[in-house]
């Protein structure tokens, strides 16, 4: 019987009877423009029972007729808490990213008297362990057992792929605060999935332009040859090669190997103008140190997306000095939102905030914008999504908005390591959007 609830249905606000049928999102969007809509899904059965004013006139295999008189939204919300599930790594290599995101996410949510759209909320923290094989099970657990209203996560792109596929099918409101897999806002893009970080394509893209502007026309690419590394290299090539630069060689290193001596020997023999690398964490520390130890530091320019020098400059020491990277954030960005955010973070958690914290903070701001717009009625998913799409996020990284595929359209900064700090040199590209290849939203 209730399978009809699996379809997204429609009713006229004026209370006219109209038969429901299956709509896809595109149609729904068009209809929204006329003010005619209502949707619910299998996850929100309880919302239907609350909607006493909706009288179901007929329940059939494919169509039901509905008469509607909308109750006020506030009444729908009731006293129940809004449930937000976080699917983030709380153990393993990425623990500090998960903690950083959670800290600032909570910081953003607790700002307005600790309420979202007038309702209380609770966080249900689930440890993703950054393990893709566990992602599907944990996502289902959050949706089916915990019955959360939002999922926030993950850090790891492999986890994101598995999670997003389910979130799409289940129509689960999802905000991704880090994982950069292009697919999530590409072929897998979905109205209910938002990303507040970046696509892997984005951070490397401005670097190609920067190099060409300085007359550096040849490059060798060296990266971990898995999803993120390859997509980052694509982003770089899309600006570098199309602008007339030449890629002399691409060296893929199996992830997560950190033995770079062979690659350094090859690079030294090729002698390009610049080397673009994608490594993060321990790999970034080791590559930068090996690079300096091999005497290449002052002979060939080493560049990359900001992860090369993000949170690791202390471990890299002198070897990192002068390295230039592009990223959507830098600790030293001079704007009011950033100063306020960093001061509050340090006060609350006793340490410096980082780019992952910024992404978590913006995830919190985004959810607040969505839930506030429907005054706590999270079942009004369509309105909420519309508000989130329109949101201008006043982020520590500078104001940004969403692309149609729900990825940030944001500034990318050219940064240089000076005294162990990523100092902003200038804006490398303004309002850069991911090309969202394969997204049919």
């Amino acid at each position: 019987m209730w399978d009809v609830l699996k379809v997204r249905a429609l009713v006229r606000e004026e209370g006219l009877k109209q038969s429901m049928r299956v709509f896809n999102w595109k149609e729904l969007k068009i209809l929204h423009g006329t003010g005619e809509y209502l949707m619910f899904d299998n996850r929100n059965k309880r919302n239907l029972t609350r909607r006493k004013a909706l009288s179901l006139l007929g329940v059939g295999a494919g169509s039901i007729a509905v008469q509607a008189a909308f109750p006020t939204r506030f009444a729908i919300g009731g006293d129940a808490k809004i449930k937000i599930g976080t699917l983030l790594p709380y153990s393993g290599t990425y623990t500090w990213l998960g903690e950083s995101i959670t800290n600032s996410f909570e910081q953003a949510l607790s700002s307005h008297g600790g309420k979202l759209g007038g309702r209380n909320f609770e966080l249900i923290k689930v440890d993703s362990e950054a393990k893709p094989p566990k992602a599907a099970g944990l996502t289902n657990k959050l949706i089916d057992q915990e019955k959360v209203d939002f999922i926030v996560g993950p850090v790891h792109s492999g986890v994101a792929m598995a999670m997003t596929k389910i979130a799409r099918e289940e129509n689960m409101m999802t905000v991704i605060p880090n994982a950069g897999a292009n697919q999530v806002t590409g072929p897998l893009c979905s109205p209910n999935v938002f990303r507040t970080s970046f696509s892997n394509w984005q951070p490397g893209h401005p670097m190609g332009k920067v190099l060409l502007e300085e007359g550096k026309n040849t490059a060798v690419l060296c990266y971990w040859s898995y999803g993120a590394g390859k997509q980052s290299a694509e982003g770089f090539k899309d600006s570098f090669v199309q602008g007339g630069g030449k890629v002399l060689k691409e060296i893929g290193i199996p992830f997560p190997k950190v033995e770079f001596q062979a690659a350094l020997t090859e690079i030294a023999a090729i002698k390009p103008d610049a080397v673009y690398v994608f490594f993060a964490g321990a790999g970034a520390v080791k590559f930068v140190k090996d690079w300096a130890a091999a005497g290449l530091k002052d002979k060939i320019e080493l560049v990359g997306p900001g992860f090369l020098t993000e949170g690791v400059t202390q471990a890299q020491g002198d070897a990192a000095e002068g390295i230039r990277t592009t990223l959507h954030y830098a600790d030293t960005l001079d704007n009011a939102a950033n100063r306020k955010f960093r001061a509050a973070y340090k006060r609350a958690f006793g340490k410096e905030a980082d780019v992952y914290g910024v992404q978590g903070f913006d995830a919190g701001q985004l959810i607040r914008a969505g839930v506030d717009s429907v005054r706590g009625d999270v079942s009004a998913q369509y309105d909420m999504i519309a508000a989130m799409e329109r949101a201008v996020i006043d982020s520590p990284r500078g104001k940004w908005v969403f692309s149609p595929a729900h990825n940030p359209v944001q500034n990318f900064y050219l940064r240089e390591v000076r005294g162990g700090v990523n100092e902003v040199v200038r804006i490398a590209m303004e309002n850069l959007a991911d090309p969202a290849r394969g997204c049919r939203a």
Partner: protein
Amino acid sequence: MDWLSLIIQILNGIQYGLLLFLIASGLTIVFGIMGIINLAHGSFYMIGAYLAFTLSQLTGGLFTAIALGIPLTLAFGFLLERFVIRQLYHRDHLQQVLLTFGLILIFNELQQILWGGEPKSVPVPEILQGAVALSDTLSYPIYRLFLSGVCLAMAATMYVVIRYTRIGMQIRASSSNQNMLNALGVNVRLINSLVFACGVALAGVAGILAAPVETVYPGMGEQILIVSFVVVVIGGIGSIRGAFFGALLIGVTDVLGQVFLPSAASIVIYGVMAFVLLIRPSGLFGRSE
């Protein structure tokens, strides 16, 4: 590719292989002599690296870290054998794998609590800083040459000890027939303790020595563990000589694979392992059953 680059690449491979030997030798003696599959061996490597980080911060140098690290890791291995590993001698491999896998989880969690998730770095001692110029763009860090030298010295020492000393003879005998050795009045328990402690210390020292070039980070042990097992299997289980040549073979193969077969770089060493096992099922220097 010119000849100079090729020679440098082979040198890179040998240098990587020597480091692998240091780790794999500890694994192969524990495996070959005591019959214990020790999955936690990589963790000892990681512990050594973190010890290097903490000790060199406390004492101000890598050399003091090595001097303190060797007795510490020996003692740690001794205690671990006494209270944990000893339970495993008469059990099957599955239980050994389970217990030592559990140890990995415990050590990783302790590592998170003690040192956190961020990568750490250990400075190269001042007298070993600097580099030797190999070509107009490339130079070779002196510390890496020093590392290779130490690995060679360790290999030679192990060879002499096992081959020409009384304790070495007992260790070899212990790997052939422990009951007979026991009947002859040799304290087999002590030999086992000693061998295990030495195995732990070898991995620990490898970690300490590698820390300045490898960077210290969570999970570094698991990565090296798999390659070490490949080395041990290729060389022949329990054979130090096998571990030595196996490690060099893997080191050179890995580097050349990355240069000449970049698309298949991650599987080349496993291909070599399969090939060796096809021709010599018990490894290059293994005793056939």
